[in-house]
């Protein structure tokens, strides 16, 4: 009896210790969360202040203004940059999803000789380390007359392989063929079954992947910078504003902060609206064949 009591006490003690550790960690996480948000709030707050207030009255409450945003749109090609980012993000993520879904459906939903070879090819791009192909791809894009064209960047980024393929492969593999078989009896062809019966069943995953693809393209700096030099995107523009702002002696910073805010806010809204789906997709490791 005494032994059992001692064991119970020791388990209770361990549970209490665990609770204390978790509370301490929770406090640390809260502090970290504050450090995550403070820079963004500070940037946003200063984007609605006058340049002189930002430099000389940093900790004073001063009147707010939207002039930085107005001037940004008036004095810089902000509208073009936003449109470039938007078009590129929408079209590229749509192409990516279509390419990935096609590849996943072809290898997961049908049994045919060679499907495992293509499965291997599709996942191998994740594991084979590569470096130094930038010069070759640049030359290739030029030879194919795709340099400085939106469609060039779209094609280059829409490979339909790697991690997204692996995710969709397992989704397509687990889709029951019952509805597709019924549609086949009713005379629906392969494309119709793929587009209207099978793919909608993968809808939630596809939407989440599309959003992640959109965010990735919206944020991408390297591809548009190198392969689309005449059509600046927002990520490229913000970088260039930052190099110019440092020459203005500080008063030009609020305008740069307005550009930064414009690049963050749509993504934050998109993320908060679809965070559940995005988080489910990002768990990734949880999906098994």
């Amino acid at each position: 009896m005494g032994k059992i009591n001692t064991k119970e006490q020791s388990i209770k003690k361990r549970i209490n210790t665990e609770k204390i550790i978790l509370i301490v960690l929770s406090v640390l996480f809260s502090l970290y969360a504050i450090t995550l948000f403070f820079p963004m709030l500070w940037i946003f707050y200063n984007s609605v202040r006058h340049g002189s207030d930002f430099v000389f009255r940093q900790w004073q409450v001063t009147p707010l203004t939207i002039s930085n945003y107005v001037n940004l749109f008036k004095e810089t090609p902000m509208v073009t940059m936003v449109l470039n980012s938007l078009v590129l993000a929408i079209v590229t993520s749509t192409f990516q999803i279509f390419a990935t879904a096609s590849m996943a459906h072809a290898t997961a939903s049908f049994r045919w000789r060679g499907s495992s070879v293509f499965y291997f090819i599709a996942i191998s791009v994740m594991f084979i380390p590569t470096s130094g192909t930038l010069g070759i791809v640049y030359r290739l894009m030029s030879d194919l007359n795709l340099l400085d064209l939106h469609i060039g960047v779209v094609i280059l980024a829409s490979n339909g392989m790697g991690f997204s393929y692996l995710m969709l492969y397992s989704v397509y593999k687990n889709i029951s063929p019952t509805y597709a078989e019924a549609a086949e009896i009713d005379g629906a062809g392969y494309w119709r079954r793929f587009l209207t019966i099978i793919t909608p069943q993968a809808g939630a995953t596809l939407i989440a992947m599309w959003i992640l693809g959109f965010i990735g393209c919206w944020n991408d700096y390297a591809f548009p910078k190198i392969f689309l030099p005449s059509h600046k995107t927002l990520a490229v523009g913000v970088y260039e504003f930052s190099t110019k702002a440092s020459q203005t002696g500080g008063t030009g910073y609020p305008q740069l902060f307005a550009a930064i805010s414009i690049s963050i806010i749509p993504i934050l809204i998109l993320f908060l609206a679809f965070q559940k789906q995005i988080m489910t997709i990002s768990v990734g490791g949880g999906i098994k064949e």
Partner: protein
Amino acid sequence: MTNSLVNKTGKHKNGMTRRHRKQMIFIFSLMLFPISQWLIFWLYPNVTNLVLPFTTYDFFEGKIVFAGFENLLTEFGKVFSTPATRNAFFNSWRALPINFIILPISVIVGYAFSKHVPGERIFRILFFIPSIISTVTLVLCFKYIFEYAPSADLTGPGAQLLHKIGIDWHGWNMEYPQQVWTMIYIYCIWAGFSVNVIMISSAMQRIPEALIESAKLDGTGFWRELWSIRIPLIMPTISVFIINSIMCVTSFFLVPMTFMTTKGPEGIFDTFPWLMLRHVEENGLDPSTMIAVSTLGFILMICLTPIIIVTKAITDKITPDVSF
């Protein structure tokens, strides 16, 4: 399909039924774009990339000619003889320790999430935010918090805090490269572990509860449970992160580039990937640029491949033969 090719049972002469043939045409049409894209933009560049470091551009002939190891050895020699190349090479490797600091932090945070730390649901969302904001934007947010430019009367709140606690922070000043690099490390850790956390906690949550409970009954404490049970059982996930961390060396440029905007004297903030990017930006269509970029990439890969193989062998060896 013509009738002459189909026998009475509907079977094609080569043994395919009509249905099967239609199916293969459909599969082919599905894969046409992704496979063509892979052949043109992945396989061709990567195969060419293996050949180019052993070539040189003959300006008189106007073509690329085989040069054996000459080009590769010359470029590799620069890593030791030219300060700018040396700095660029070794700075690329700075990505390694950063990622190896991030990993244990991610494991501890992921473990706390799997234990349902108070506020877990909101933390999951908040911690994910750095991974959805562009690197350029996030770096700029961090950079201006720690901005210190007395000549422009600028001191960001972070810089003010550092000065208050007695740290002699000189801002993003090229004359203090070690201080700047330390700050870049801090940024990378601050912004870098969020995605890992989500994956690690989900891998931990897949471990059967019965296994954890029985360990608890045997007297396993909080940290022991993490070290002796959870970490070994999620080693496959951790080993993927480790390999990815090593691979980061090949893409480490955007963070130092956004913080410093220029490579600094003798490339003190330069990295190999940044050097490749500049080569292409400056003269991308020149064949010698293509060779130079390939050679730089090849040098990195020569150094990385044995590290990856050894790491993979070690992680495979310590990974128990179970999966959840």
